[in-house]
């Protein structure tokens, strides 16, 4: 029925089109353009046009709203990072193109830093690629390595771009949720959210090209343990599967936790792309620099994508980043090193945020890493009756209500789920705590008033 309609529409438009051409020719008038049939998008982007951030960033743009939604710091980057960029911007040659796969001094610094964590040396030219943010690395990895018909395992909730990127590559996402078992008498922690090993094994088959891992995890804040990573590694090796490991929050782990790189597990270097982010490392999300590290037989394909997409990343930013890295590489054991000082600073903010959410009667999940906290907001039993659009999941409505009525914004966690499983997480909302004290103070005021209103 639908096909027939489309065919009729096509024929109808074609007839109109021909009629226009014919009459224009007779009158000697230029053919005027009209709504054409061919100006339609490529199939690869079909259904990928909606995006949670566009909607919610707009909502939170109101300056009177305390924005705990989008994951960007409102704290200043470290002074030396800003200073380096200023110095570098004055150097003439750094205003022109640099090496496409990564500015030489930057790939060198990255190799030097990450070699400390891997058993092997890292070749800066063959085993590293600098990209437009970690987002760009994800894109290059997926476009370079994932084909139509492949399956890619995505762990839910997931950073929202994984699904559309996999679909854009013509592949099928296969989802597996993290499941939680809150323990009575103990604070609900991100480590309580785990993958069922049997369930995970059932998702792998001969078509599984890759699994996307995110540790520390956005939005839950889970830091995968050695045992958990071993289970994933064993399956990757058994099924000859790639691992795309999104480790942008690698430095942001809190007391009692350690970030582990799956690429360092036996048999994993040759099948893993490890992704990092300058934005998250140095609190400079607007620099949009990220990197992929892996064996040359994988990285070379990401490099091919790079030379056919953006070719090269901005030069002055890469040089400044290299210099910032050198400063901190030299003092990795020093508490002043940003890789150490930032998580310390954030742990305090995390604890403050947990306390605030608890005071509101919520049960937040204490993150072991990252800079987000999720909490089940249905306990608040907010009156959302005035929110239109009843098709939206609960958390979407809640966030819109909270932004409008409480001037506090957050992000609905069902945005990090696929269409079929949105309901599993629709009671959860994500709060970002990499915010300056005054922002958290303002959030505290709102929450205190809200608490008073409830009692």
């Amino acid at each position, binding site marked *: 029925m639908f096909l027939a309609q489309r065919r009729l529409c096509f024929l109808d438009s074609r007839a109109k089109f021909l009629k226009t051409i014919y009459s224009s020719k007779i009158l000697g008038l230029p053919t005027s353009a009209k709504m054409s049939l061919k100006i339609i998008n490529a199939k690869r982007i079909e259904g990928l046009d909606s995006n949670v951030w566009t909607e919610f960033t707009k909502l939170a743009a109101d300056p009177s709203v305390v924005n705990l939604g989008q994951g960007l710091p409102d704290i200043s980057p470290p002074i030396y990072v800003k200073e380096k960029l*200023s110095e570098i911007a004055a150097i003439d040659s750094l205003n022109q193109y640099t090496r496409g796969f990564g500015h030489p001094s930057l790939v060198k610094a990255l190799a030097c830093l990450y070699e400390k964590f891997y058993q092997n040396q890292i070749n800066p030219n063959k085993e590293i690629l600098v990209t437009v943010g970690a987002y760009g690395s994800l894109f290059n990895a997926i476009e370079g390595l994932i*084909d139509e018909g492949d399956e890619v395992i995505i762990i839910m909730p997931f950073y929202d771009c994984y699904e559309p990127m996999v679909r854009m590559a013509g592949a099928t996402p296969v989802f597996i949720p993290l499941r939680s078992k809150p323990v009575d008498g103990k604070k609900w922690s991100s480590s309580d959210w785990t993958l069922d090993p049997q369930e995970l094994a059932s998702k792998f088959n001969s078509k599984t090209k890759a699994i996307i891992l995110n540790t520390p995890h956005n939005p839950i804040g889970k830091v995968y343990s050695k045992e958990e990573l071993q289970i994933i590694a064993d399956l990757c090796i058994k099924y000859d599967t790639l691992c795309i490991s999104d480790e942008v929050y690698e430095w942001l782990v809190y007391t009692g936790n350690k970030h582990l790189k799956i690429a360092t597990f036996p048999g994993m270097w040759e099948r893993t792309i490890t992704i990092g982010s300058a934005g998250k490392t140095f609190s400079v999300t607007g620099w949009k620099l990220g990197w992929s590290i892996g064996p040359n037989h994988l990285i070379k394909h990401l490099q091919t994508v790079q030379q056919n997409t953006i070719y090269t990343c901005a030069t002055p930013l890469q040089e400044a980043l290299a210099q910032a890295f050198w400063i901190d590489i030299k003092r990795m054991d020093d508490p002043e090193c940003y890789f150490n000082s930032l998580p310390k600073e954030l742990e305090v903010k995390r604890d403050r945020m947990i306390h605030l959410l608890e005071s509101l009667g919520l049960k937040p999940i204490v993150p072991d890493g990252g800079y987000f906290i999720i909490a089940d907001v249905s306990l608040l039993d907010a009156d959302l009756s005035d929110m239109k659009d009843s098709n939206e999941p609960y958390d979407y409505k809640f966030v819109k209500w909270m932004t409008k009525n409480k001037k506090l914004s957050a992000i609905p966690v069902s945005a990090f789920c696929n269409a079929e499983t949105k309901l599993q997480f629709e009671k959860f909302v994500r709060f970002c705590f990499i915010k300056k004290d005054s922002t958290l103070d303002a959030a505290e005021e709102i929450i205190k008033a809200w608490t008073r209103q409830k009692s």
Partner: protein
Amino acid sequence: MAKRLPARRLDGIDHNPWVEFGKMASEYDVVNLGQGFPDFPPPDFAVQAFQLALSGDFMLNQYTRAFGYPPLTKILASFFGKLLEQEIDPLKNVLVTVGAYGALFTAFQALVDEGDEVIIIEPFFDCYEPMTLMAGGHPVFVTLKPSPTGDGELDSAGNWRLDPTELASKFTSRTKALILNTPNNPLGKVFSKAELELVASLCQQHDVICISDEVYQWLVYDGHQHVSIASLPGMWERTLTIGSAGKSFSATGWKVGWALGPDSLMKHLRTVQQNSVYHCPTQGQAAVAQSFQHEQLHFGQPSSYFVQLPQAMWRSRDHMVRSLQSVGLRPVVPQGSYFLIADISDFKSKMPDLPGDVDEPYDKRFVKWMIRNKGLAGIPVSIFYSRPHQKHFDHYVRFCFVKDESTLQALDEKLQKWKDELRP
């Protein structure tokens, strides 16, 4: 890993000619006229704009709006709105990208589908073909052909034309897009209004999208006018106009570009953007916005960079045209862009057997020989042609003249030495 790597969309597009020549140019002591970037700094006001972006609000270190930093999309909309005589909405009709390269990629991915045909005019900026292939498209080539020049006369880029009948024959019901580049890289041709009208009428007749790469739009010489095809009747609704801050402000390393077009097309580019890079770096965009403010204030006046730069490059072009002739290279005088191509046929007849692979085009072998023996780097023009046509156009080398006076003097020194070596 036993599984097939890479993804099939990378088939045939992994080779990168630039890597080879870039490497060679850095290994030898050469005057590098190969890759297209200025070896002089951006204008002061642009450098200051960047400094301002870095020392101002520290929140410029964080994400901005994904489709473009608002002050930048605003100024691009007003600046190009005037030029194209079109109402341009900063939110719906402007997308900021990672260089013009990023805009091209985004356009191809958004609009070119498996089996779609894309008409590419040869010689072409080399990424058009692999980008078409990566999108599953089928490139259809049509060649600019030079008419014979009189004895002793220099060839001109304007002399290279499309045959209208041949061009029309390239359009089929599968043609999705035509990619136009004016001023053209590597030839330096500036398409005339009449030539654009021909392209426009065919695009409209066949309902084809025009992707217009206009990165060198300010760099026109000899009084030639750059015309944006989007400004012709009936074309705005089917054209994407691509520009570059790198080329506009001599700051190629900032990697800020843009696409302008109707919302019906732009919305699809936005979908690709949000699923590929999502945001572009904020501070570079702030610097470009500020730089455009400067240009808007000075537009059309002698103090405008878009007036000063082409005037200065016109002189550089003339200098290079004169100099190259002294050793028997025969430049094709460009009407615009950063580049000229020089005919090396005389060398091909005098030294046909330069070292190289058996199927390596002559111009590639010549460039390698020139780098090794004459201390001069250029780019073989055959890389800007489709594989089957390379053997017909293997007798040109591309040189970039957007260089500092000292570089042109160094060029003269190398050429003098070369000339001395030519004497029997």
